């Protein structure tokens, strides 16, 4: 099983490096190989998650390691979908390293398969955490698109339509992430009421989910104001990423609370 995990980690790294070289030196062939390596890695990671889920007989989402692995998988899957649907090849160079980084974080966590603690045995479990995985993934993709936007727009020779496309994609990913984060927070509230009797307890994880939610609500409103402000919004989408990562990993590590599982 470990072979699949570390195999995918190494392959993601290789894909990110190849993609970087391909983009920097405009070598299409290298970039194409990077994509194939990336697909192989995604397949290995998917297999890993499946095997782990079947072995544990539950969704592999229950501790920091599993959640981080699923998070990296979510980002990779979204990259696959967006790239295929929009033919947005330019996205890979920014997103692939992010997949690798998140999976590296997972690799640093304890990996043993543990029994699901009773508090997590609930129909809400997959729903709440699944929505969180894809919400965070969408925000990460939006941030990566923002980064790409800033790099491309610096070049001067930037194609206005392409920039607009990036700005719009970043916005759409944030819209998707926002809907999913809302679902995460609301399902979390319903679950908390089932498990602990109160919908909301101002637990640090809840508070940081709310902060993240507000930050993206502000993004959505700023973007509504009149003419397009691509560069500012790209910066915004990028700067919001650390907040998402903190909500995901930082809170559990440095702020004890009800969500400090595993």
């Amino acid at each position: 099983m470990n072979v699949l995990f570390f195999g995918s980690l190494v392959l993601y790294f290789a894909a990110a490096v190849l993609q970087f070289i391909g983009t920097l030196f405009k070598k299409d062939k290298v970039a194409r190989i990077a994509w194939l390596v990336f697909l192989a890695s995604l397949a290995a990671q998917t297999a890993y998650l499946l095997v782990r889920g079947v072995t544990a007989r539950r969704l592999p989402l229950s501790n920091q390691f599993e959640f981080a692995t699923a998070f990296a998988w979510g980002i990779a899957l979204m990259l696959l979908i967006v790239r295929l649907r929009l033919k947005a090849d330019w996205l890979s160079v920014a997103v692939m390293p992010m997949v690798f980084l998140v999976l590296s974080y997972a690799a640093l966590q304890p990996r043993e398969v543990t029994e699901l603690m009773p508090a997590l045995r609930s129909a809400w479990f997959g729903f709440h955490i699944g929505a969180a995985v894809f919400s965070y993934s969408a925000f990460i993709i939006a941030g990566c698109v923002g980064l790409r936007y800033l790099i491309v727009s610096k070049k001067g020779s930037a194609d206005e339509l392409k920039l607009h496309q990036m700005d719009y994609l970043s916005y759409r990913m944030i819209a998707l992430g926002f809907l999913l984060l809302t679902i995460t927070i609301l399902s979390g509230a319903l679950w908390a009421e089932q498990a602990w009797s109160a919908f909301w307890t101002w637990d640090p994880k809840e508070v940081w989910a709310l902060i993240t939610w507000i930050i993206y609500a502000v993004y959505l409103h700023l973007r509504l104001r009149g003419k397009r402000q691509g560069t500012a919004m790209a910066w915004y989408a990028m700067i919001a990423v650390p907040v998402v990562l903190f909500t995901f990993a930082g809170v559990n590590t440095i702020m004890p609370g009800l969500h400090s599982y595993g």
Partner: protein
Amino acid sequence: MKKLWRFLRSMRFGILLLLLIALCSVLGSVIPQGKEIAWYAQTYQQVHGWILLLGLNRVFQSWYFIALLVLLCLNLSLCSLLRIRRVVREGKGEIEQAAAWPIQTPLTAEEAERVREHLRAIRSREETVNGVSVWHKNRIGRYGSFITHLSILLVVIFGALALYLPRVTDRSCMPGESLTMEDGTEIYVDAFAIEDESGTLDYNSWIRLTLPDGRESGLKQIKVNYPLSFGNYKIYQQTYGTAGSITVNNLDTGGTDTFSLTDTVFLSADGRDGVWFDALYPGYIESEDGSVTLITSSSGHYTDPVYHITLAAQGEYTPVLAFPGESLTVGNWRYDFNDPVEYPGLRIKYTPGAVNLLLLLSFLLMIAGLYITFFLVPVLVKLDETGCTVGGPKPEGLRMEIELLTRKETDT
């Protein structure tokens, strides 16, 4: 005055409020909340005075945080209620108006065909007004942000009610006994188990609720994540405890009585001779010299329970350890030490009215509102052989798609 009014209902004020709420939240998560004053004094030394003065030890209950929420509700109501009239007005007759738009993007006949195909592919409907074709879909999309804002308002209001209205009490109850609430509701605990079949810790109670009007829930199993909901009550399996059980026998009459004991108590007929129950310990360690060390805490079953009692006889008090199965006789009374009894700690939540249901509906409305906003984006296009105009409340995406489509045309 007018300026102030305009500011109060502006999006800028809304954003400011949201950011201030976020700022308070950051402080409320960085500074641990609701601790003893001494704890802040020790942890934050010089600045603890500021923390207490600004209420940063209870940010989320502070007057300014609540004021921010109230202002947000006010701002949201003003900005969405005042806008909705215009949104509805603009929605009415928008197709007829679109037919009269001037053409903004000139297209060749071939490009126009491409655009038409695209509009068909995304399933928009064609309507002909005065001989002009207008394509549209997702007209409900324009109400998405109104629905979203309305739902936020409802979530804040019903959320506050759902947090502050319920009466929550934590009570223990021995299996086979009942609790009676103030309103006459009765909660009967039939049984309690600490472990599941495989021996892992999993606390389960079997309870029955009887409402004052006589309605009964039937015997239901509760455990973490699966409370019993009945009437306005919700009963949670919260904690558990282990009680001593002593049967007192009157050797003269043969009468017996069994007591479940958690606190120190004196079991005596005359108030002079009898048994003081001090505590029940989960286990003990016996060392080689025969001395016994009591284990004071454990999770799960008590493996080797020990009763710590004081025997009172004729004015003399003797501390004694007793084990389940043993008996002691004082005068005409025999005290049998039984196996301990495990009992649940229940959390009993009473929520008046339909607050929870209304909150749930607001949640669903919020998700529907966001879905409509983001995924039912309105399409409104006037298209003829000379060109097209994309309008409606959210034209950005479609304008870009059409630009991409027609550019491909010129590229190839």
